[in-house]
């Protein structure tokens, strides 16, 4: 039997486990991608969000078998990019990171917003982050950080 072949943060990878295994668990336990957090395992908080083929998806709601031939990016793969630098800087500028638990998912949600729309309105940013629960900030700092990143990183997205 063949394994499940996919790209994880740019590296071709083959998973031999069950096709019904949860991507979230596999990322954390098999591939040590600990940036991917488990907040609810029901698709209701966004802490485990990753990019699959560039699109934001909650990894708790994905079975491994679905990934054959696809490309996954977690913060471990995203943090070396110029886009990450701009977002990180913008988040830092507004102290938008508090407890940090929602942040990896939030960051990828931000990337997803900007890759779809490099110059979003505040409403579009709020909409884009609406599946990522943050209990600390009240969201203002995060939303403003994404808007600032869009300005500072003009041309990157």
């Amino acid at each position, binding site marked *: 039997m063949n394994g499940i072949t996919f790209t994880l943060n740019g590296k071709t990878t083959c998973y031999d486990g069950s096709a019904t295994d949860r991507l979230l668990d596999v990322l954390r336990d098999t591939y040590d991608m600990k940036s991917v957090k488990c907040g609810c395992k029901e*698709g209701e908080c966004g802490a485990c969000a990753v990019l699959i083929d560039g699109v934001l998806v909650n990894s708790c709601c994905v079975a491994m078998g*679905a990934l054959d031939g696809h490309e996954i990016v977690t913060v471990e793969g995203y943090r070396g990019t110029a886009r990450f630098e701009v977002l990180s800087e913008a988040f830092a500028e507004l102290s938008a990171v508090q407890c940090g638990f929602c942040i990896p998912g939030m960051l990828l949600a931000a990337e997803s917003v900007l890759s779809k729309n490099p110059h979003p309105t505040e409403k579009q940013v709020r909409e884009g982050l609406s599946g990522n629960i943050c209990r600390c900030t009240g969201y203002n700092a995060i939303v403003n950080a994404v808007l600032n990143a869009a300005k500072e990183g003009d041309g990157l997205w």
Partner: protein
Amino acid sequence: MVNGYKPTSLQEALTIRAREQVIPYAGGTDVMVKKPEGVPFLFLNDIDEIKKITEDGEYIRIGAAVTFTQALDSDLVPPLMKEAVSRIAAPAIRNAGTFGGNLGNGSDKADSVLAGFALDARVRLVSEKGERIIPFDDFCVRRGVTNLGDNELIAEILLPKATFDLPYYYKKIGGRNALAISRVAIAGTYKAEDGVLKGISVTVIGEGAFNRYRDVEAELIGKSLDEIRANADEYAKKFIGKMTFTRGRVSAEYRQTVVTNLITDYLATL
């Protein structure tokens, strides 16, 4: 792969479906929440035939594995369906969740199914033996129960083009502005000529099942819009009289009141 099949064609998928017990997997957003153990998954997420939105003379055809985000980005999808789909959960769920899954899991709160009911949608079901096309009304039996055969898969959702441009009414009430399951929702379309109602659909979330009350709808057809608007509350009562509301995350009283208000508003603003 272990515990899973990943066909690349619908035909291949149907062969597996006929051969053994599998759980059809399209987007994963429902099936992974209460992850069933011990049954292999049949992955439908990479079958091109059911990942497309196309049109023919009669229908807009939405493949079962089309995601909600795909529909939102498409020019072919009617505005009512887009509006309903845009209120599903949040982007990460809309990026994965599919039309086939929303319909197939038999939820009584499925936003795309609500819009489908209002748009006279049909579903194309396929098996190794052939296919059948049935209205949503016939497919959705009751909460958790559908008319999907053991050997069948959902191939497409068919939205009649005749309903595409019709004026519509839509309102969703969830527990919050995003990541919210519909507690009550209403969708409807209507058609009028020269101030006379020629066709109407009304369907709601809140009954524990999707219904169309075609007899009440038929009563309205042929009446002048002015007459319906002026007596909206009376006509609304006719619908309400047929409905039974369920208690769940909110009370039946809440659901009945809001549905009454919204059907009245819908009819008063035709």
